């Protein structure tokens, strides 16, 4: 596992303030779920998400990532809801004892497309943003430094731990630990996971001390080494997107009331 795989190259989308991209991802997701037309999320994906991805030049990374996660979910939804959707009337086809239902297929289409927008919006953010920049932007917008700390540290410790897992595997194999076959793998679980997790947990004591002696968690207002670029246009764009999301929610709620 790696810290969010990001493209090395640069583009106007890369240079956007991370918050702008975050608000974008949230807005398209909320909009996708807010309106009830079946094909609306697809329109949203093609009209909003896709142009951004193309502008960022990450299309070649974006689609494999998206498809790898989205296709299995979409297939599952189609199978489950196509055949087992409750309260149905129209049967499209019969396959053995199973009935393929029209309402189920429509629901599956809508759900799968919504998930595509959700994933697409966030992949765009991740592919074009340095995690450090996103975290700095969040802190500078007043998010609690502790919350930001937890997320950024988790992003870095996970890959560091993966490297350490390799070392542990070698150390145990050098002691004759068999790791081939299912039985070997199950037996190897404790000698592998034990040192890894206990090691990581015991490191916490030292790390907390190091952070505390460097002033972490004091109530003083922090300053920042890195300045996150922002423009008036982006501030306006964020407000507009926020209003769009809000409108979508309100429309949806009124739909509920009616």
């Amino acid at each position, binding site marked *: *596992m790696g*810290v*969010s795989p990001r493209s090395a190259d640069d583009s106007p989308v890369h240079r956007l303030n991370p918050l702008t991209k975050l608000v974008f991802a949230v807005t398209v*997701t*909320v909009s996708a*779920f807010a309106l*009830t037309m079946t094909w609306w999320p697809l329109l949203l994906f093609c009209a909003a998400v896709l142009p951004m991805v193309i502008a960022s030049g990450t299309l070649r990374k974006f689609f494999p990532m998206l498809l790898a*996660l989205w296709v299995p*979910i*979409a297939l*599952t*939804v189609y*199978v*489950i*809801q196509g*055949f*087992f*959707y*409750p309260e149905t009337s129209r049967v499209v086809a019969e396959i053995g004892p199973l009935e393929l239902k029209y309402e189920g297929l*429509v*629901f599956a289409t*809508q*759900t799968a497309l*919504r*998930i595509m927008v*959700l*994933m697409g*919006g*966030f992949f765009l953010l991740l592919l074009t943003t340095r*995690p450090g920049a996103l975290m700095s932007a969040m802190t500078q917008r007043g998010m*609690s430094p*502790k*919350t930001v*700390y*937890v*997320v950024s*540290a*988790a992003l870095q410790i*996970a890959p560091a*731990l*993966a490297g350490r897992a390799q070392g542990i595997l070698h150390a145990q194999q050098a002691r004759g630990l068999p790791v081939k076959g299912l039985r070997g*793998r199950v037996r190897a*679980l404790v000698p592998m*996971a*034990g040192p890894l*997790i*206990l090691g*990581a*947990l*015991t*490191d*916490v*004591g030292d790390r*907390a001390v190091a*952070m*505390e002696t460097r002033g*972490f*968690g004091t109530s003083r207002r922090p300053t920042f080494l890195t300045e996150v670029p922002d423009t008036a246009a982006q501030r306006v764009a964020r407000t507009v997107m926020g209003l769009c999301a809000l409108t979508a*929610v309100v429309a*949806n709620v009124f739909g509920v009331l009616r």
Partner: protein
Amino acid sequence: MGGPAALLALCGYTLGAMLTVSGAVAGLPTTTVALLPVAITINIVMGKIVYFSGLPLQLDSIGTVLVGVLAGPAAGAATGALASIVVGMTITPGALPYAVTAALIGFVAGTLARAGWFRRVPTALLAGGVIGVFAGVVSAPITAFVFGNAGGTVGQSAVIATFQAYGNSMLKAASLQGLVADPLDKALTVALALTLLAGLPSGYVHRFPFVQQHRVLAVHRLVPRRT
């Protein structure tokens, strides 16, 4: 169709998770804050190992339960919610909507730890079952309305499909699946968390005042190693 429910589940849950985190994290001492990222990493690592082993389990909340036990319900809840965000950022955005379930797991674990359920193994396993019931019920609306009942694994999806085939509504099918699978999964999670706690150096738990204040763990963990 399904629109309002999906949106409410998504927005309500996400908002709930955000509020939980911002409320909980601010008050935590540094040692606990430093523990959280490691706990999140443990969730991810174990989740991956189990996922690739093909076992019909999740075991992706060991870290969350550990924090609940060592540092209390607020810290546990924050771990769960932030873990979903980290997984959302690194592995799949599909984890984001489940942030509230993950937070609830940590919260319940912490609450039961405070009540002393983790002092003995049988009650600890029972606590795992209770955590599982909460997790199962609360994640059902997300699975049903946001993901159209596509479960996290093929096994889960198959169970849900079976329940739907027997004429249950989508929400009911998802809830039933959760109630079948989650208690067992979380009991096993608790068992593994306890094993890990036993391997920590003796002075370690003393860095967490919650454990001392509420006598969360059995007495033998707190006495000197050598006399």
